[in-house]
């Protein structure tokens, strides 16, 4: 209980830090966001009066703490502000893009687990064997491959040569496969390694040894008893791979020209659309912090002995 409280307080503090960091990054910028936004909107150099009016309208004349406080209050109320470069609100832009990214994240997770679990189990059953070597080698190749390159290879081979999937875009489930494979393959490497480690631990546990000594067939031991227990932490840890998904989404969405949070962020960065940059960054930070919290608590619930970070609890 004390741990839970402490963890919640820390989370709130971190969320505060996340919001300050998010907001202040855009204050460091060179150039005038008002001019940049107006040029983006109208396509020509704005007059002095328009710039002044724009600053007034968007509250850009206030001192930094006031602007932060205003923004934070609005944000808590769900109002992320107005995009500079389109007439939409940031919240509605995020609302349009978020489902695409969630879809991609979920699909790549499915693919990652579908690759990782069999590979990890096969490694653990005969550690040091050929299969283990091959799987470890494959996993490392997976994490080492730049996903923008893998994406193009998949487009050429699976979309153009084999005509299995569409090249790019969003819409149907068929559009989801190549980006999900691109993103999932890198993630599967990390998960496969975890499956291997936990399987090795579990296979060495007393109850498995008992099961074996009772003469149960090895296959039943591995699949029925060991795997089930090994998967609990693995599924939880997979949640921590969210970071990988969000990092990867930025590039993978660009390769497959999918409208999502990643492409929204990149476009906003190039257009210097600060409210959008802030909104997306904040959202990503918050999702990430909350997921970590959830994973942490689940983990603790599942195995109270675990002190994940080596911090004195």
């Amino acid at each position, binding site marked *: 209980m004390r741990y839970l409280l402490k963890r919640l307080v820390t989370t709130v503090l971190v969320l505060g830090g996340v919001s300050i960091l998010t907001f202040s990054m855009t204050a460091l910028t060179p150039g*005038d966001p008002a001019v940049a936004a107006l040029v983006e909107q109208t396509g020509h150099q704005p007059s002095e009066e328009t710039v002044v009016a724009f600053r007034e309208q968007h509250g850009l004349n206030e001192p930094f703490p006031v602007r932060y406080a205003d923004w934070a209050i609005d944000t808590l109320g769900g109002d992320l502000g107005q995009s500079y470069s389109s007439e939409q609100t940031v919240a509605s832009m995020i609302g349009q893009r978020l489902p695409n990214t969630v879809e991609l994240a979920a699909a790549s997770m499915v693919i990652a687990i579908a690759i990782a679990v069999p590979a990890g189990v096969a490694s653990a059953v005969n550690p040091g064997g050929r299969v283990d070597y091959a799987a470890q080698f494959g996993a490392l190749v997976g994490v080492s491959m730049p996903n923008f390159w893998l994406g193009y290879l998949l487009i050429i081979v699976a*979309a153009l040569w084999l005509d299995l999937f569409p*090249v790019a*875009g969003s*819409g149907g*489930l068929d559009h989801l496969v190549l980006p999900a494979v691109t993103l999932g393959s890198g993630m599967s490497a990390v998960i496969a390694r975890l499956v291997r480690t936990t399987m090795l631990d579990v296979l060495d546990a007393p109850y498995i040894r008992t099961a074996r000594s009772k003469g149960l067939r090895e296959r039943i031991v591995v699949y029925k008893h060991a795997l089930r227990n090994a998967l609990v932490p693995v599924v939880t840890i997979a949640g921590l791979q969210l970071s990988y998904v969000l990092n990867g989404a930025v590039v993978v969405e660009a390769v497959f020209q999918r409208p999502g949070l990643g492409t929204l962020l990149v476009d906003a960065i190039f257009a210097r659309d600060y409210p959008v940059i802030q909104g997306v960054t904040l959202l990503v930070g918050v999702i990430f912090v909350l997921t970590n919290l959830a994973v942490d608590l689940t983990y603790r619930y599942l195995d109270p002995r675990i002190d994940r970070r080596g911090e004195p609890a």
Partner: protein
Amino acid sequence: MLTLRNRRLSRRDALKGATAGLIGLAGCSGTSQDGERTSSSEQTEQETTFRVGTPWNPDSLDPLVKGWMFRKLNVIEPLVIADYNASVKPGLASGWTTSDDNLTWKFTLREGVSFHDGTPLTVDAVVASLRRSFNSDSLASLPVESVSGSGERVVEIETSTPFAPLPAHLTRGPTSIIAESSYDDDGNVTAPVGTGPFQFDSWKPGERITTVSNPSYRGQTPAIDTLVYESVPDDQTRLLKLENAELDMARALSGSAISTLNDRPNVEPVTYAVPRSRYLVYDTTSPPFDDRNVRRAVMHAVDREKIVDSVLNGLGPAATGPFPSGVTNWANADLEPYPYDPQTARQLLTDAGWEPSEDTRERDGAPLEIDLWTYDARALPIVSEAVQAQLSQVGFDVSLQVMDYGTIEERANSEAFDLVMWSNSLLWYPDPDRLTDFVHSENATMFSGYANDRVDELLTEARQVTDAEERKRRYDEVQSIIQRDVPIGWLTYVTNVVGVDADVTGYEPLPTETCYHLENLDFDGGENASQTETANAQHRSPDALFRNRHRSKK
């Protein structure tokens, strides 16, 4: 009619079920997108869906913001439109006259036109729409005083000064006529209700616009039933999607796409010259380019022919002045191009005080270092890289930066810069008054800082006289003066590359790029269609000069 896609039933369709099952297991719902996709890309025997891929982002429905986009799709129409000679012709107005003092314009509305919501095109509707346009920021620079109705069919526009380019400005997207049902009580556009052959159906902001054919269009009903405008920002991805039959037309492709398009049987390239240039903008107010000789040195140092022949795959041609003479009569035929001559360039630099030093040049101990800014469109980065290397041959030390165009506009307008590589249409409204945007001392949107009283005077006069000969004389002189002073260095003209499905016939690209005119397309489902179709298309072409089908296989 045969549908466009039936011919290519792919393994993809068979797999759709399988993937749906897999993803469905993960509890991931994609039903809304799924539903939309089904309606937009799967066709029955009667339906033809045509998908155009472009680099541009559909992020607004308001014609004042993204009117050019709906204009290209021909959802909305203005009073005046551009013709195939990059000149004006009647649009929703059947004709127009000016008063003797050239201050009052009378536009007679075309008969028998109705909006997509069924209401007729009346004087009141046009006046309301135009007033909304002229009150907006995007048209604030025009000297329009008032818009009013006069009788049943005439709309009067008064200007504060005589303004000859008015009809040309009325071809612009934001001046298109929309019905009042387009916007809500707060004036926000909810659906652009225009008069064109296609009508707005739905959109996904940032992704696509879906339009359907307008059954009550006054002309022939389009062969396309559903026209989808899809944003695919990356050039290569647009090409790949076209090859893979996910698009039926891919716009603004790079020159290197031509060989790929020729190699594949299901697609073909269409190329056509447009009144658009790639050019260098100099900061004429700061060293080193405040010295005309240094600007001229650049012009002699850049081998434009070679750039066109190599990195642009032969698609130019090299530019002489602002206007390409094959596309418009407004080009000054007497302009002399700056020949490629590195020796002259070096001499000009030495004369300007830039003496050779170890690798570059210096003046008073300061090295000849310049920044070249550009953005990623129309092959500008690769052209800039070639220019960078050529300038270094005569002693410039050039650092190249690829940025967002908005950032360049903002920085070039607010701080000293050196050199910007840009590309723009010289006739996106078909009038040479466009030169004002480039070289007028106060009204220019290009940021060279160039100020020449004679140029200002000529540009102002040319707005006020209506006689075409008189105007041309003045614009010719402006072109000569800026050729001498080089505030802007014209490098190449642009030839557009559009990839289309091989079944498409009747595509006639408009040089001003303002409208795709996809309502004229027809489809030929037969396997041998492409051969016969080429011959037909060239007969039908109103100006075959602008249009070239690269049929030859390498």
